[in-house]
C-alpha cells in the first residue's frame, strides 16, 4: 500500500482496524481490494481538502499515531517564472496563483493520487471549477513570463490534452468532453481566459483543458508547474497551498512565482503563501465545551498529535499554530474538535444532561392520533403513502381540473413530480394494487398535503388531511356517512352535510361537509368512471377532510 510507504508504518488490513485508524481523519472504508492491496476511503469532511489525498491522510495520521511532529511545508526558493495578468480578465476569471515544485519524479501511484486530488478539489472546493481549478504542466517546457490573458474563441487554437489535432477554443468547448462539461463557466463571455508562455505558445484554456504539448505530466516529469485560476482570490490561493503541500510530501521542493496584476500596478503577489496562522486558544473554553478538565500541557500534547504545534502563553491561553493547508479552521471551536479527536472522544465519559424539561407531543400529533383511534375502532386500516406524487395521480385520474399545486423544478422520476393537494388519490393508488386481496377493504390515511397560497410565509402551506375509503360489493353512501358522523361526533365537532357535485364522486350521492360556514371536506360514492380509471371494479365510498382545528376540547 502506497499509504504505508508515506506513513513509514504498517497499517491494518481488516476493515474494522482500518476504520479505527481512519477515525482520526473522519474516514470510512468504502471497499477493500485485497488483490491490489488497496482500499477506497470516504472522507466525510467536505471542508478539509488537505486530507483529500493519500499524502494528506498519511501526513495527518503520522502525527496522530505519534510517528512525527507536525512540520510546516517550506519554500525552497524563488523560481524564475513571472506571471502577468491581463486586466480584461476582471469580470471573467480574475485570479491566478502558481508555483513550481521541483525534483518530483512522480511514481505511478503519486501521479494517480495527484490527479485524483485535482479532481476532488476542482469538484468540491473549486465548486466544479467555477470558483477554482487546477492545472499541472511540465515546468521545464514553459518559458517565462507566463501570460494569463484572454483569447478570441475563434482565432485562437491549440492541441488540447488527449488530442492530436489543433482546435480553436470554440471547437474545444463544443467538442472536447471537458469543454462540453465546463463550457457553462466561460461560454457567456466574448473572450475566454488563456494562458500563454514567453514564446507565445498556448499553455491552457482555463478552466477547461491544458495543452497536450506542455500540460502532459508523466513519471518522467522532474519539475511541475502548478497553476490555479478562479473567481475567488482566497480559494485560488488555498487550493495552490494544498496541492503543493501534497506534492512536497513525496520529496518535491516548492518554489514561488510572482504574479503581476496589470490593473493596479501594485507590487507582485508571491505565491504560494506557506505561512501558518495562529489563534489564541482558551483552555477553560475548551474544557467547557468538552465537559472536561484537561491541563494545558495535556492539551498541547494533543494539539501536536492533531498537527497543531502549540505553546502556552498565559495561565488560560495557548497559542495554537495551524499550518498553511489547514484552511478548515474558521473558529476556535474547530480547534476544540481537533483536540477532542486527538484526545479520543471515546475516553470522555457520557453524561445525560442534568436538566429538567417537560416532554410532550405536538397538538397536531395528539389530534391526528385521536382521529386514528376512532377510524381504527370503525375497522379501518391505517395507510402510509408518498406525499410526493404526480398530477397524473391526484388530478387527471380523479377527473378534476388542474388546480394550483406545488410542482418540482428538478423531478427525478415521472411518478414524483409534485406535492399532492389531497389524499384520496394516494389511497386509490394503493387500492389498485390490491384487487386480489380480500374484500371488504376499509382503509384511511392521515397525511400531509401541500397547498399553494397567493402570498404569506413560504407561499405554501403543509396541511394534514384525513381520508377514508370503503370498497366492497355493498359499499355505499350510508356506510361512509355513518363513519364520518361517528368520527366527527367522537371529537365533538358540529357539522352539516350539504349536497354538492364534484367530478370524482357520483352526482346526487356527494355531500360537502360544512363546519359552520367553512367547507372542511367531501363525502360520497365514487363515480364509476373513477373506479374504472383506477382499475377497480367494486362500489366504493369515501370521505376526505381537512383536520378540524382544535376540535378536541
Amino acid at each position: 500500500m502506497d499509504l504505508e510507504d508515506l506513513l513509514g508504518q504498517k497499517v491494518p488490513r481488516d476493515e474494522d482496524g482500518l476504520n479505527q485508524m481512519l477515525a482520526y481523519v473522519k474516514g470510512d472504508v468504502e471497499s477493500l481490494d485485497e488483490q491490489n492491496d488497496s482500499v477506497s476511503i470516504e472522507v466525510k469532511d467536505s471542508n478539509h481538502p488537505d486530507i483529500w489525498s493519500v499524502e494528506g491522510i498519511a501526513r495527518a495520521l503520522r502525527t496522530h499515531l505519534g510517528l512525527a511532529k507536525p512540520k510546516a511545508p517550506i519554500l525552497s526558493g524563488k523560481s524564475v517564472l513571472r506571471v502577468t495578468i491581463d486586466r480584461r480578465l476582471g469580470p471573467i476569471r480574475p485570479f491566478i496563483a502558481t508555483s513550481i515544485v521541483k525534483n518530483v519524479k512522480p511514481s505511478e501511484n503519486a501521479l494517480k493520487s495527484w490527479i485524483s486530488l485535482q479532481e476532488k478539489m476542482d469538484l468540491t472546493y473549486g465548486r466544479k471549477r467555477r470558483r477554482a481549478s487546477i492545472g499541472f504542466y511540465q515546468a521545464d517546457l514553459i518559458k517565462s513570463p507566463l501570460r494569463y490573458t484572454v483569447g478570441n474563441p475563434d482565432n485562437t487554437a491549440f492541441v488540447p490534452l488527449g488530442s492530436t489535432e489543433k482546435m480553436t477554443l470554440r471547437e474545444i468547448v463544443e467538442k472536447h468532453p471537458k469543454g462540453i462539461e465546463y463550457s457553462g463557466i466561460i461560454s457567456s463571455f466574448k473572450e475566454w481566459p488563456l494562458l500563454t508562455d514567453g514564446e507565445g505558445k498556448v499553455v491552457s484554456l482555463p478552466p477547461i483543458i491544458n495543452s497536450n504539448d506542455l500540460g502532459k505530466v508523466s513519471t518522467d516529469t522532474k519539475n511541475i508547474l502548478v497553476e490555479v485560476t478562479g473567481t475567488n482570490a482566497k480559494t485560488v490561493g488555498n487550493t495552490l497551498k494544498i496541492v503543493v503541500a501534497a506534492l512536497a510530501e513525496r520529496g518535491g521542493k516548492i518554489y514561488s512565482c510572482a504574479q503581476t496584476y496589470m490593473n493596479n500596478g501594485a507590487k507582485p503577489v508571491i505565491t504560494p503563501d506557506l505561512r501558518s496562522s495562529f489563534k489564541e486558544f482558551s483552555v477553560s473554553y475548551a474544557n467547557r465545551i468538552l465537559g472536561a478538565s484537561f491541563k494545558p500541557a495535556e492539551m498541547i500534547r494533543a494539539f501536536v498529535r492533531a498537527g497543531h504545534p502549540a505553546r502556552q502563553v498565559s495561565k488560560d491561553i495557548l497559542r495554537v499554530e495551524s499550518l498553511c493547508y489547514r484552511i478548515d479552521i474558521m473558529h476556535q471551536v474547530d480547534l476544540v474538535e481537533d483536540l477532542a479527536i486527538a484526545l479520543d472522544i471515546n475516553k470522555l465519559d457520557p453524561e445525560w444532561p442534568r436538566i429538567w424539561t417537560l416532554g410532550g407531543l405536538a397538538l397536531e400529533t395528539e389530534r391526528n392520533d385521536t382521529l386514528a383511534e376512532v377510524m381504527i375502532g370503525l375497522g379501518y386500516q391505517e395507510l402510509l403513502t408518498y406525499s410526493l406524487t404526480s398530477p397524473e395521480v391526484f388530478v387527471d385520474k380523479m377527473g378534476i381540473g388542474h388546480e394550483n399545486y406545488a410542482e418540482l423544478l428538478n423531478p427525478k422520476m415521472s411518478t414524483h413530480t409534485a406535492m399532492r393537494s389531497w389524499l384520496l388519490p394516494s389511497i386509490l393508488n394503493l387500492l389498485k394494487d390490491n384487487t386480489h386481496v380480500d374484500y371488504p377493504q376499509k382503509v384511511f390515511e392521515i397525511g400531509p398535503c401541500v397547498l399553494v397560497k397567493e402570498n404569506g410565509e413560504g407561499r405554501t402551506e403543509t396541511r394534514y388531511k384525513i381520508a377514508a375509503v370503503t370498497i366492497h360489493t355493498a359499499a355505499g353512501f350510508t356506510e361512509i356517512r355513518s363513519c364520518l358522523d361517528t368520527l366527527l361526533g367522537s371529537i365533538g365537532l358540529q357539522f352539516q352535510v350539504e349536497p354538492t357535485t364534484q367530478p370524482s364522486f357520483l352526482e346526487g350521492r356527494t355531500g360537502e361537509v360544512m363546519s359552520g360556514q367553512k367547507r372542511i371536506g367531501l363525502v360520497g360514492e365514487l363515480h364509476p368512471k373513477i373506479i374504472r380509471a383506477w382499475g377497480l371494479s367494486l362500489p366504493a365510498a369515501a370521505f376526505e377532510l381537512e383536520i378540524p382545528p382544535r376540535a378536541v376540547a
Partner: protein
Amino acid sequence: MELRENDINVLRTLRDAGGTASVEDLSQKTGLADAAVARASLTLSELGLVKEQTTRTTEVFCTEEGHDYLANGLPERRVATVVHDGGGKLSASEAVQQAGLPLDFVSIVTGWIARKGWGKIEKTSSGALLMVSENPPKDEDEELLERIGQIALPIEELPPNLKHAADRLLKRKILASKERTQRKLEITPLGLDAIPTQASVGEVSGLTSEMILSGDWERVRLRAYNVSSPVPSLNPGKYHPYLRFIRMVKRKLVALGFREAIGPLVETAFINDDCLYMPQDHPAREIHDLYYLKHPSKASLEPWKDILEKVAQTHENGWKTGSTGWGYKYSREEASKLALRSHGTALSVRSMISKDLQIPGKYFAIARCFRPELLDRTHLTEFNQAEGIVLDPSLSLRNLLGVLEMFAREVAGADKVRFKPDYFPFTEPSVELQAYKEGYGWMEFGGSGIFRPEVTEPLGIKVPVIAWGLGIDRLYMMNQQIQDIRQLFTTDLEWIRQQKVA
C-alpha cells in the same frame, strides 16, 4: 348475521347434494334464479359457510357434421351396413355410393373399417374390395355421439374409453369443444353447523332473548357446536406498521423530556440550509441533492428579516461570531428559493427561531424529508428522519455523548455504543453514533454535534445547542428484518394487514 331464507335453502341443497354443487345445479335444485343463488353464495362465502371454487372445464358438442352422423350414422357404419346387407362383399366405391356418401369418402371409410376391425379390404386392379361378414356391434365413437346428442358434455366427466373416443371425434371434426368456467360451491364444516335443524322437539341451535327471559332455555337442548372447526378470518382496523413504530419512538422521546416540533414540508433555502451555515454554493445544495420548486419558486423572507442580515454577514465574514465566515457574497435571491425539506435539521432551526423556544429545552421531530434519489433497495426519495436539539448553558460534548448513549439503549435497544468523529457543516464537534446489538454487530445509527456558533448566534441563541439525528427508517428495517427500504411505503395491503402489532 341472520341468514336469509335463500341462504339456508342453498346451504341445505348443498348438503343434500353431497357437499358440492355448481351454481347451475343449485339454481335447478332450489328453484331459485341464477342471480339469487349467486347473491346467496356471496353472503355465505363472506361468512365462511361455503367455499367458492372456480373450475375450468372443456365441453364437447356435435358439429354440423356430427349432427348429420347422429341422425344417419357414422360413414363407416353406413358403408359397413351396405356391404353386409349386400352379401358381405362389394367394391368400396360402389358401397360408398350406395350409402349416399360422396366418392371422396372411399379412402376415409375403408381406413376406419379396417382400423375398427369391422371388415377386410382387398386391393384389386379395379379398386378396393370391401368384405364385411357380420354386422359390427356399436362402438365407443357411436356411444359417445349418442350420449352427447344435442347437449354439451364436460370432457372431464367422461370415462377414460370415451375420452379417447372424444379425442378421435374431435380430430375428425365430428365434435367441437369449448372452454367453460364453472363456479362450484362447497359447504364448509361451519356451513354444515349453520343449517338450522328442523328442530326435533326440544333441540334448538340458537339462544334467543325470549328464551333467556322466559326461562325456556331450561326446557330446550342447545345443539352442540364443533368448537374446533375453523371460523372465518377478520381484518381488523390497525395502525400502519411503520407509523406504529414511529409512535413508539415518539413516546420514548417524550418520556425522556423532549417536546415535539412540527414544520412545513416546503421550506426556503434560507431555513433549510442558510441558517445551518451551509454556504450557498455548497455542493450538497446543488440541484442533485435538493428538490427545488418550479411553482411557486420563491418566497418572501420578510418574516425573517432580523435574522437574515445576521445570517448573511456570518456567511460572508463571520459577523460577531469569532469566525472567518465562508468568504463569499451572500445572495438573498438564492435564500428565497423554495425547496422540499431535505433534512430534519430544518425543523431544529424552526424550533430555535420559534417564539416559544425555552431554555433549558429539549425538542424533537420525526420529519418527512425529500431528496432527488432514484428508488432502490436502500434509497427513498421521501423518507423520515428523527431529529432534535437540547439547549442549556451547562451542556458539553460529554452531554452529547450521554444523549446519544441514551438513544442507543432506549430507542434502539443497543447493548454497547461507541463514537466516531463525524462531519456536518453545521456542527463542531461532530460525532457519529455506532451501536452494537447482539446478532447485528456494530451499526451506524445516528449523527450529532454541537451547533457551530455560526449557526446559533445569528439566531440569537447564546447557549450550547446539542443537535442529533437518528436513522429511524433504518432502525425500523432492522427491527422488522426488512431488507428493502421501499417496503416502508409499500402498497401491499395484505402485508400491511398481516404485520404483527407486538
